[in-house]
Structures are given as C-alpha cells and as structure tokens.
C-alpha cells in the first residue's frame, strides 16, 4: 500500500553476515497481512535463512501467485527482483525464469489455494521436472484473500467459520511432491522457527526441486474450532519426526547438536544437512516408506513435520537438458545466430 512507509531505524550493533550485511538488509516492505498471520513468520524465516546463508539478495528471484501468501514476497528481500504473477501459475513462470538464468536462486511462494486448487497441475509438473528452486506453500487450509472459503488442503470433516462441513478428501502436497519426484520434501510449521529456518536453508542450498509445505494458520478465517489447520489443533497433533539443521560447508556447527541418532546427508554443493531422527526407522531417501509414513500418521490424525524426503542423487532440469553453463539470457548474437553463411547453406538444402 502506498500508505505504508517503512521505518528504517539504524542499529549500529546489528550482527553482520559474511557479506557485511545485517538481517535488515534482507527485509522487504512492511507487511499488510493481518496481525498475527502465520505467513509473516515464514517471511521472517526466509529473511533469516538468506541472511545466514550469506546470499546476495539481488541474486535471488522471488516469485509467487495470488493470495495473502503470494503477497509476502513484497515483505522480504527488498533488493531482489520479485514477480507476483497470476493465480496458481507461479510454477510455470518460475520454470521459465529459471531456464533463462541458471545462476540466480529461485524462491517460489504460494498458498494452498494457489497450489492445491487452481495450480495443482503446475505444482505437479514443476516437481517432476526437477526445477532447481525452493517452492514454499504457506498452507492455511483456506483461501485467505477471498475471505475464508475452504481450500483443497482443508481436512475432510473440518468446518468453516460459517459452519459448512468439508467432505472432499484433503490434498497432502508434501506426499504428492514425493510421489511426483521432488528431490527435497519437507514440512514445517510457521510458528516453529527452530525447525523452519534450517529446513529453508537446506532447501535453498539443495540443487533440484525442493518443496516445503509450511502449515501457516490464518488467524482471521481459520483459527476456530473444527479447523484442523488452526494453531491449537496443530500444536496438539504435531508429530515432529525429524529435526533438521543446515550446516554450511565452511563452518560446521556440529557441536550445537547432540550426537546420537544423527544422519548426515551431503548436498550437491558440498554442504550437507544433519538429520536428527526422532523415529528410528525413518530413512529420508526412501520415497515409498516416506509416503507410507505420512499416510499412516495422517490416518492417525497426526501431521508429520521435518525433512520427509531427500534424494541425494537429484539432478536439476538444466542438467537434464544439458544447457550450457553460461546463463541463456547472457548469450550474444555471435553465440546465438548461425549467420549469413549458414543461411546460404540452408537455402541451398531447400532447393
């Protein structure tokens, strides 16, 4: 909104990252979401993750669809280019953007309406193509921006504010992403920064399609009895199986974490994440088992959070297509145009 002017107070002692930037340098415009909206916590998580990863903000592209959730890219990373596209179609726009310049970091933000209803097809296809990106769904089970209708992730049996009951089967986007071949799939909760930030960091560093389904209660339309996406319900039923912490290659902070049931997974850029498994049988590399696990817990009314699946051998779309290393948008005439002589030969071959 043109009315909101961002206060930019000066704090000389703010901590700086390797680029000499403070956390504030990763912020965006002041949010216009409802006070207390889960989405704002996720924006804070993204800011924190990018700050900690020492990413130059202008080398990040942030894309979204339409919805309260999709508005959030305005509220983080003010120095990044952003694209608030049309409802449900962020995945295709992000795919094209990624093809044009493989050197930027891509963060896609979407809502459950945006991704599980109108955008389900694009959601599925970007996962199976293995586009190198972090795809975040800020999942509140409702259409926030259009005032609280059910979305397709609303649980069967939940009741809307108006008391309408939902009979349709609920879509589990994380399970779907696993099935569709995404190579990094996690779920978290907007209020659980300790779990969220490391997952975000790991997802951003992951080379391939990384998906995080973040439960993000809508304070205005869904924090009521009967809703299974409300803060209260989630706090009660949250079955955290895996705690994840991302450790950048340069400064391994293993000491901060207990030894014991710890699993290290090396990522493509040489960095790796350490998984603390709460469930002894859980193996993030096994898609079939992960699916079963999610499904079984879901049937028990439990929401599995944590890193659900990681394919350590993932490739990304550029690798599959074997595009050149130089970003396509930087290629020049000489590299692109076959020229007069070749054209003469082509003409000849057409006679």
């Amino acid at each position: 909104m043109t009315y909101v002017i961002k206060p930019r107070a000066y704090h000389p002692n703010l901590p700086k990252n390797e680029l000499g930037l403070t956390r504030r340098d990763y912020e965006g415009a002041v949010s216009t979401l409802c006070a207390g909206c889960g989405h704002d916590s996720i924006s804070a998580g993204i800011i924190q993750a990018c700050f900690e990863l020492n990413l130059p903000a202008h080398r990040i592209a942030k894309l979204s669809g339409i919805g309260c959730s999709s508005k959030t890219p305005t509220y983080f990373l003010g120095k990044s280019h952003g694209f608030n596209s049309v409802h449900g179609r962020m995945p295709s726009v992000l795919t094209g953007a990624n093809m044009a310049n493989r050197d930027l970091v891509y963060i896609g933000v979407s809502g459950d309406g945006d991704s599980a209803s109108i955008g389900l097809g694009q959601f599925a296809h970007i996962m199976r193509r293995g586009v190198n990106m972090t795809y975040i769904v800020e999942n509140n089970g409702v259409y926030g921006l259009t005032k609280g209708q059910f979305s397709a992730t609303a649980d069967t049996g939940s009741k809307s504010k108006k008391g309408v009951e939902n009979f349709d089967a609920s879509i589990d986007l994380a399970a779907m992403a696993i099935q569709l071949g995404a190579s990094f799939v996690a779920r978290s909760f907007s209020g659980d920064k300790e779990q969220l930030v490391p997952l975000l960091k790991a997802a951003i560093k992951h080379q391939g399609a990384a998906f995080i389904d973040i439960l993000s209660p809508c304070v205005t339309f869904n924090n009521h009895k009967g809703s299974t996406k409300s803060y209260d319900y989630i706090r009660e039923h949250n079955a955290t199986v895996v705690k994840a912490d991302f450790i950048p290659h340069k400064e391994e902070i293993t000491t901060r974490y207990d030894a014991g049931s710890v699993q290290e997974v090396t990522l493509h850029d040489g960095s790796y994440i350490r998984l603390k498994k709460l469930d002894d049988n859980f193996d993030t590399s096994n898609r079939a088992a992960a699916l079963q696990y999610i499904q079984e817990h879901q049937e028990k009314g439990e929401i599995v959070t944590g890193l659900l699946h990681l394919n350590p051998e993932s490739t990304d779309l550029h690798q599959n297509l074997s595009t050149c290393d130089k970003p396509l948008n930087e290629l020049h005439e000489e590299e692109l145009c076959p020229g007069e002589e070749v054209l003469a030969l082509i003409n000849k071959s057409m006679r």
Partner: protein
Amino acid sequence: MKQLEAVNDFVIKFANINGSGSASANLMFAKSIFRMGVPVSPRNIFPSNIQGLPTWYEVRVNEKGYLGARGGVDFMVAMNSESMAADIASIEPGGYLLYDSTRELPRHMRRDDITLFGVPLTEMCNREYNDPRQRQLFKNIIYVGALAALLDIDTAVINDVINEQFKGKEKLVIPNIHALDMGRDYALEHFNCPIGLTVKRSDQVGDKIFIDGNSAAALGCVYGGATFASWYPITPSSSLAEAFGSYCEKYRIEPETDKKRYAMLQAEDELAAIGMVIGAGWNGSRAFTATSGPGISLMSEFLGLAYFAEIPSVIFDVQRTGPSTGMPTRTQQSDILACAYASHGDTKHLLLIPNDPFECFELSAQAFDLADHFQTPVIVITDLDIGMNDHITKPFEWDDSRRYNRGKIMTQEDLDAGRDFGRYLDVDGDGVCYRTYPGTHPERGSFFTRGTSRDPYARYTEDGKIYAENMRRLDLKFETAARALPAPVTQIAPEETDLAVIYYGSTSHAMQESLDQLADQGLTLNAMRLRAFPFSPDVKNFIDQHSAIIVVEQNRDAQMRTLLINELEILPEKLMPVTYFEGSPITAKYITAEVLKRLSPNKVTPLRGAQK
C-alpha cells in the same frame, strides 16, 4: 471427348489413406517438378486421425507462379477405394484418372468424359515383393513412375530427388529407382505418353526455395536469438516447435562442451507454456511458444498479465478452423480478434502476419526485436496452409551486421552512474519504459513485477489516477508501435482506380491471381497486404484514398475488417467483406466471383446490398 491439354498448368490430386506411406512419394513428385524450374504448390488435406482414413495431396503446377489453391482436379491419382467414388466424381470433364486396376473399376464410378489409366499396382507389387511393408510402400513409387511418363517429367530429376531423400540409407536408392522404372515402363508400354497435361522445364523458380512455413518460422526464431521455447503439442503448430528443436540441435551447440545454447520444454498445457515464456522473458531471455486457437484461448489470462506487466514474449498462432476444436486439420484465419484483444479488461496485442515461409522467417526473427523493444507479447499469426504445406518462396536473407534490439535496458553501469530508474516511468515520452534484468545490481534496479496496478516506480497502488495514467501510457506505447511494425505492402495498379482490396496472410497467393483475373475482366484494383497490428498510418491513408474497399479474409465474421473499422474509425460501408471459411484454402476463383458481386467491372460504383 476433349481431353484437357496444358503445359505447366494443371492440378493433380493424390487420394491416399493416411499411414500408408504415400506422403514421401507425393512429395518426391512435387519436388521433381520444382526442380524442373516449374512453380508448384502442393497441399496436404488430412483427417484428424493417425491411420486408415482418407487423405489427399493436391499439387498445383503453374508456370505463372500462381501458388494459391486453384480448386478442381485435372488429374486424379485415386489410391483409396473408400473415397474413390467421390474422388472420381470430382475430376474436371476431359480430365484423367490413374487407379489401381488390380481390381476392376466399379461400374457406377466410370465416367466417359475422363481418361482412365489403370495400373495394376497391387498385382505388380505382389509379384515383385514379398515383404508386406514393401508391397505397400513401393505402390506409391510405382505410380510416381507412371506419372513421370504420362506427364513427361524428367526421370533424371526424380532420380536425383530419390538419391537425396535416401542420403545415409543408400541401399534404399536402387529399389526405389527400380520401382519408379516399373511404373514408368508400364505407362510407356500401355498408354499414349505423354498425355495432354505435361511438365516442361522452365526458369520460373530461379533461386527460390521449397519449405513449409513452420520450419521457416522456427529458423527465424533461431536467427532471432530465441533461447527458450515451451510448447504444448497441437496441430498445426507442433511442427514449428519441433523444427526449432531440430535446428537448435544443429546450430546451437556450444562447440567446446557440446552443451545447448537453448532450452526447450514440452509444457503440461498451454497455460504453462505461456507462463514459462513470460518467466523467461521477464528474466531477459528471448522466449516463445507455438500454439493454435484453443491454446490462444487458454493463454488469455496470461496474455493480459504480459500486456499489463509489460513482459516481452513471442507467441505463434498457427490457425486452424474454429471455433472450439472445430476442424483441427483444416485452415482458417479466425483467431484475429481473439489474438488482438486477448484477455479481460482493456488489452491489446501486437500482431505480425506473414504470408509465406519467407515472411515466416523474417517476421519471426523480427518478433523478438519488437517484443523486447515494446516489452509486450507479440503474436505471430499464420495458419495451417502456410505452416504445414511446402511452399516455393524467396531464399531467406540475413545480414551479419544486424544486431538484436534488446530494447531499453538499464544496466549495472547506468545504475551506478545514478540514472533514475522507474520501471514504469515514461522518460522518453513514447510510452516505452526502461527495465532491468533480475540480478543486475546489488543495491539499485530491483523492482516488483505484478498484474496489479502500481506507480511508475513499480510500487503497488490502488490510486485510480495513477492507474489511469499508466493505462494511457500503455495506449501511447501502442501508438508508438503502430509506426514501428512491418509496414503493409501496397500494390498500385497501372491504371488509376479508387477501388481497392485489403487482404493478409495465406490469402495472398489466391489474391494475386484474382487481381490478374479481375484485371482481365476490366476491373482494376489497388491492393494492400496487411502485415501487422496495430495498423500503420499507411493503412488509414490507403483506405482514405479509395472510395470502396474489399476486405478478403478466411473467417465468417470478417474479423480483420472489424479491427480496421474499430481501430481506424472507418465507415463500415466502405469496407466490404469477402469471407470464406470452409476450412480449405481460399481460391482466386472464389475471390474473383465474390468481388464481382460487389464491384461492377466498369469501375464506378460499389454494388449495394453486398451481403456479409
């Protein structure tokens, strides 16, 4: 019976079954005539299925270079028993029929006003070959051989064509030439060769080339610097995307690494295809998608976004017969309005309208410059007739000194130099603003792109005045564009006249022929071929200079006429529509007849009550 007689001026039609391997034999036939220097225009008429249904290949041979469909058949090669009755009935009196005489021609199909050439193709093949595949395939070559004798086509030329066709599979050459000889020998032995219709070497082809419009457009994209293509298969546009892939595999490989200097994705649908193009365009890559009518409908929402958020993007609409799925393997020019005004709200799009493969190449390459310069979608509109048929066309041209026009880009240097950057700030007064590529500068130059309203500095706003100001600027940008797009092609008749015709795209060839026919009948017309929308000021001038104008197009609702009236504020009565929309290419004969219904040859008054 008077047999038809003509040198280098006839129509021969092959009636086949699709999937039977006739296509390459028929192409061979057409190409041989082309090689003899005689203008030829083949057209494929195929069903919307894959195998087992009737399909036709119509070849017009015409010394004068009339390449439009003529209508009527002088010589029918009837290889499909299912459509045979209708095929034979369609031959002009005095015409000729070649058929497979292994089975006797049913009595009810016989006509005594045509000449029959029965060649026992099945019998010959069964005798000669054991493999059922060969029996099927060589039938086609045998009839080409027979035709060579009947029409006096140079066998050496055909042999050359065969040699080229099987380059790399040389062992196939001998059997093919053998089959060809079998056919020729049979004809020479049993019929009076050549017949009244013959092909004679000529110099009417010159350095022209023979290529379909979709391949030409694809090559234009390669030359125009497209680095990203996304598409969803749909007839008749698929071959454009596929050809781009093939050309890129040849001409876009990084020599050191063998890696690709392009990316191409088959999208999950048309919405995704255009979304990807917009994403790539936003990120500074030249990108396109190719589709047909249903795809344009599905892309409308995104086209509105690209218009309003000002994202360069190139879309090919290879039109087919609508509405809905319509006749998906037939041609039409009926997406004009859908393309020009695609999307809800006040939207408009730049259109480029090539008329043959040469212009497909030219305008495709240019489309990327225009899209970048005007930061908006450019829709290149062709149709099935141009796109999927082989045409004789001028050789493609390119000047190595030509540079891509990437439009107004604010670079890191500009930003460092302190230039004020507002993404939607009209600094030059032409409605065209500066943009940055994402990732340009650590501190300055980033902006937020959206389909919602915003101020000149790309900040979200719901202020109605700022919104309206921006909408007016977009209008101004279109005015600027009208003067920069490819100009219409004007053709002024030698005799003075205040009557004229306006046409575009694949109507061109038939139109040229019709203009000659009309001139012969004493009706002189000036002519203008449109090549772009919004219309150049020349178009308005041209219309103003004439008292009555015929607008010829291949759709029911006279869509281009609508655009002309609406955008140029023309008196509707002045623009008389001639429309044809049966799905086959329009013919000179049809145009001439319809024009004569509306304008009397004494060149004075347009006839009233001309129906739309």
